[in-house]
């Protein structure tokens, strides 16, 4: 547009040509033509038609406000300026920030028109005074921590059941992370106060969810869509297992020796062979039933008790050099043999 104006100013001859184009041009150009016609100046013949460089009009708006950051009072309440999470905006932050990598010796780009500052997450809404103020505000909804629950042991004692859930850093159109619904319940088996049978049955019911090393039962549920439902389900499972383990079913009488979880000497062939041996040394020979065997009083056999302890520890504590040696000592005492001499 400006080119055509220029032509007119310099030449003014080809009016018809100019007029043709004016139709597409703005009114301001029109005014300039009129002006030119009124004050006819000396026209220089420009043979080379040298183009006059004219500054392109910059579309600078006069109504751009001065930067807000410059006008902020120093004692303002920052929490009101930046109340929530927001992308960085240079005009709202009265700090001389710079961000960016530059070669040595140069200054990094400033805060204005700096996309890097806009990318990084900021915590300008979480300044310490703001946090403090917010905590103060929430305080009215809190209750006091019970004084007696002053140690880990006390907490464990009064609240043995532990519920473990996880929250996830998450972003998607749905605000529910599917993993957050999983609920884990942990409880120490010893806190359930089960008797021998119930304990055994409980362990069998929960199966591999019981860890004998830490004595913890861990029940995990993820079958329901909501965390609350899963939590209810976990509690239900624990309750059901607990009550079921106290029941004694008729078929449990069929438990065999191989099913035992520990070595019960009284019910094992070891005792039978000991009793047989003892009877033979007394020159009695009588056939005993299983009941009689298991109820036979070992204490009447000299050194029998010690033997019993040795065999039980041999079987229950696992075989090691120590237990074998103890067993050997007990057997020698039982059979009336001299003890092994310690090699000098």
């Amino acid at each position, binding site marked *: 547009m400006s080119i055509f104006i220029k032509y007119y100013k310099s030449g003014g001859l080809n009016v018809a040509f100019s007029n043709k184009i004016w139709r597409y041009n703005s009114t301001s150009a029109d005014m300039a033509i009129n002006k030119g016609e009124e004050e006819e100046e000396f026209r220089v013949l420009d043979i080379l038609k040298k183009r006059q460089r004219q500054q392109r009009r910059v579309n600078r708006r006069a109504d751009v406000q001065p930067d807000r950051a410059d006008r902020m009072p120093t004692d303002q309440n920052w929490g009101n300026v930046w109340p929530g999470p927001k992308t960085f905006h240079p005009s709202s932050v009265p700090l001389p920030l710079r961000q960016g990598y530059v070669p040595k010796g140069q200054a990094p780009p400033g805060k204005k028109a700096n996309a890097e500052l806009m990318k990084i997450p900021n915590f300008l809404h979480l300044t310490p005074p703001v946090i403090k103020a917010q905590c103060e505000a929430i305080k009215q909804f809190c209750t006091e921590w019970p004084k007696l629950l002053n140690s880990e042991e006390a907490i464990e004692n009064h609240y043995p059941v532990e519920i473990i859930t996880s929250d996830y850093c998450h972003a998607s159109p749905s605000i529910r992370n599917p993993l957050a619904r999983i609920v884990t319940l942990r409880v120490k088996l010893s806190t359930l106060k089960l008797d021998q049978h119930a304990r055994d049955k409980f362990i069998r019911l929960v199966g591999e969810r019981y860890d004998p090393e830490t004595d913890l039962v861990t029940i995990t549920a993820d079958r329901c869509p909501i965390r609350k439902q899963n939590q209810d389900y976990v509690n239900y499972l624990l309750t059901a297992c607990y009550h079921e383990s106290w029941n004694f079913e008729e078929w449990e009488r069929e438990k065999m020796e191989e099913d035992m979880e520990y070595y019960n000497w009284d019910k094992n062939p070891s005792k039978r062979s000991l009793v047989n041996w003892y009877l033979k040394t007394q020159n009695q020979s009588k056939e005993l039933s299983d009941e009689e065997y298991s109820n036979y009083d070992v204490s009447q056999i000299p050194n029998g008790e010690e033997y019993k302890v040795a065999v039980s520890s041999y079987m229950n504590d696992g075989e090691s050099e120590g237990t*074998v040696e103890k067993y050997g000592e007990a057997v*020698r005492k039982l059979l009336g043999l001299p003890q*092994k*001499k310690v*090699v000098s």
Partner: protein
Amino acid sequence: MISRSWRNLCRRYSQTVTFRTTESSPSQHNEKQIGLFYSVNHDLCKQLFAYGGLPKSFAKQTKTFTETAIMVRQPALDLIDCIKASDFNKPVIRYVMYGEKGSGKSLTLAHLLHYAYEEGYLIVHVPWVSEFLRRVPRHKEMSNSQTREGFVDLPLDVAAWLLHFKTQNQVLLKNTELKISRDYVWSKRESTVAGSPLSQLVEHGINRVKYACDVLDALVYEIKQLSNSKQCKTFVAIDGFNGFFCPLTRLHTPTKKKVKPEEVTLTGSFLELAKNDWSNGVVVVTADQLALPDDHQDSYLPRYLLYKKGFELLDPFVPIEVGRYTDKEFLSCASYYRDRLWLRGPPEIETELKFTSACNPYKFMEQCAPL
């Protein structure tokens, strides 16, 4: 020249340590002789160990060393003490020797056999159980048992064992006091009458291989009876006893079915001897890792090696550990090897060997070999 001066050096070195005892009767051995070697008479050796009993590598050594020398060690003395202290009217006491591979269980057993021979025991000695069950040469003689349904006989092996039994007890078997208590009818024509000597029974087993396994059964029964009636005292020694309890043997029936150890007749007979329902005897067995398949050799302790079955059969038994060499034993053994020209070199070599062999007798012997 160098070697001669070395040898002199070795001689001089070896003289500083006593490693030999002249006491050749095991019943006289005591703590003073621990770690010392005593030599076994050659003829006796032939009689006791002609058909096995000494480990192969040791037998080779005896040839090289031109003598059979056994070290007096703590476990053997301990066992002899126990035997001496035990009451023979009570049921037999079972001793289980255990220890790492190559720690000398079989040689301790050989020492004890010598002792038993001296004391006039009737010796029932199985040199190596796996020889029956796990070693399968190309033509292993096997047959289905005639008398017991579903069982397998190893007649040749048993006959060989009966021969071993006969040679070991040739002195005792000449004694005609040992008579059998029952009539045994083998077939229409053959039978052994009650009252005939025990040796006749054994002879029958050797001559009529077909009946060897039944003879073994009968022999076991008779030995128990004789011991109970105090006619003789019996020393049962079974090496690699846990071989009877492994899940499977390496034997196959003609129908390619794998045989379990309890399906072999001789297993039953020897296990019968290991029970404590008889008296006036001693049972010494060893539990060895080598008697079991490779996948069950993690521990050398008896309960693991004997399996549950074996443990329940033997319980209560006296466990006797055969360990590695003590310092004294090692030194005496090294001096013995030097004397026998098996080991030479500077004295530092012994510290090194002690370290590399970890005082394990068999490894020590092996590592000396190329030096």
